[in-house]
């Protein structure tokens, strides 16, 4: 249990490296977790080769949701958008380095849901995106 609040997560929650909003941007999406009202917005800039060259997240929520958003944005900078589309639940859990129960999993995966709805250019996000 203590792992959940290990330093990495508290650190990314308190001192996020990628908090902000890019304007202009190429990709922009936001969504809420209806369970707790957590909110995540992600903005990305994509270069001519289809690679993410900058990204930011904004929002409010618990340490898990905000830290996972910071870690996720950090992890995709420099990556082709096509690779971002393939990211899975497990990739986020690997970034966080923790195990989560079904309720907290939704907190951790909110940023991935938002990110994938954005890169796929979908009108709305869906839980299927993070299976």
């Amino acid at each position: 249990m203590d792992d959940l609040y290990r330093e990495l997560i508290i650190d990314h929650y308190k001192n996020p490296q990628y908090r902000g909003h890019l304007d202009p941007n190429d990709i922009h999406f936001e969504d809420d977790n209806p369970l707790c009202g957590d909110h995540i917005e992600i903005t990305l800039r994509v270069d001519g080769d289809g690679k993410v060259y900058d990204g930011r997240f904004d929002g409010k929520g618990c340490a898990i949701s905000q830290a996972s958003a910071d870690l996720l944005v950090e992890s995709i900078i420099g990556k082709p958008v096509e690779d971002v589309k393939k990211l899975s639940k497990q990739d986020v859990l690997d970034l966080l380095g923790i195990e989560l129960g079904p309720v907290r999993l939704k907190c951790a995966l909110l940023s991935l849901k938002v990110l994938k709805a954005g890169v796929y250019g979908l009108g709305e996000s869906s839980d299927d995106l993070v299976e």
Partner: protein
Amino acid sequence: MTLNVTTLRNDFPILNREVHPGVPLVYLDSTATTQKPRSVLEAMEAFYRTNNANINRGVHTLAEESTAKYEQARDAVAKFINAPHPGQVIFTRNATESINLVAYTWARHNLKAGDLLILTEMEHHSNLVPWHILAAERSLELEFIPVTPEGLLDLEAYRLLLAGDPKLVAFTGMSNVLGTINPVAQMVSLAHAAGALTLLDGAQSVPHLPVDVQALDVDFLAFSAHKMLGPTGIGALYGRIDLLESMPPFLGGGDMIKTVHLRNFTPNSVPHKFEAGTPAIAEAVGFGAAVDYLSGIGMEAVAAHEREMVTYALERLEEIPGVKVLGPSAENKGGVAAFTLEGVHPHDIAQILDRTGIAIRAGHHCAQPLHEKFGITASARASFYVYSLKEEVDKLVAGIYDVKKIFE
């Protein structure tokens, strides 16, 4: 009369469990659902072991026994709220379904475009969304009694709203977030003077306070068994008899009919008219056992114990730097202490408290508009019931200091 909580806790087997090895349960989430005493568990098991049959239709012994048990439960629940007649208690799935029943039958049958309904800003989603749905369908007007910064209903504003000729005032007896105990009798009498009917959402008040439908003079009362020591899957709607008789049926199916032909049916009498299909029979038996248990303690004693708990909890919580308790002071409050902790999301508070076995709720507690009103997205909520101990508040406070340490 004061409760002997230490002895009473022996009636609740779950309170002996450990959440993690060596870490006992500190259950502070009774506003979400309560734990069940052995008498409820045993009544339900005994029903399945010895009586189980479908009710109302069968003529064999088991069917007769089951029907009798189901109706005894209705009698017990009716007596618990002092309903004039047991037939005025309709078994539903929960308070939510009870409110929906009124929205879909009485309101749909009687309200027309432009009619006004008055709700409050402190309602649970279950007493908002059914009205949103109906208002959209029937072009009804909705107005809301505002909540003051102290967490009380603004009764002056209510008087002004009543001048708009409302047809129904639907409101909670006790807020599931602020804990505010609303002045129900006064609000009902004002509504009646303005020509409106009243629906009381008793999901929180019926489990925690003495509720007498005749003294309060409410027209409808909705509540759930699982928030008052009973099982999930069953709740009740009390209604004034003339209203219930004039209302069209809710769901169609078996039991709710007198006769059925290929192209039409005639509805059964109250309460069966509103109980389509096989109901939750064992759960009704459990519900009956739950109200028997509460009656044995006495609701005055339940309310007094919670008052003592919440007074102590507020005192202890408010001494923690960064903690802000929502809602009114203890004299207007049931056993609920919702709070925020500066710089820490409620989910994180709840998760860290869970390490020490403490179960609280975190989120908007199905009262999103109320949280918006107070400018927050979520809160942490500790809530108390008959089995709650002051030592558990002490553990909560120690746990919050641990949370602060992690996030500082």
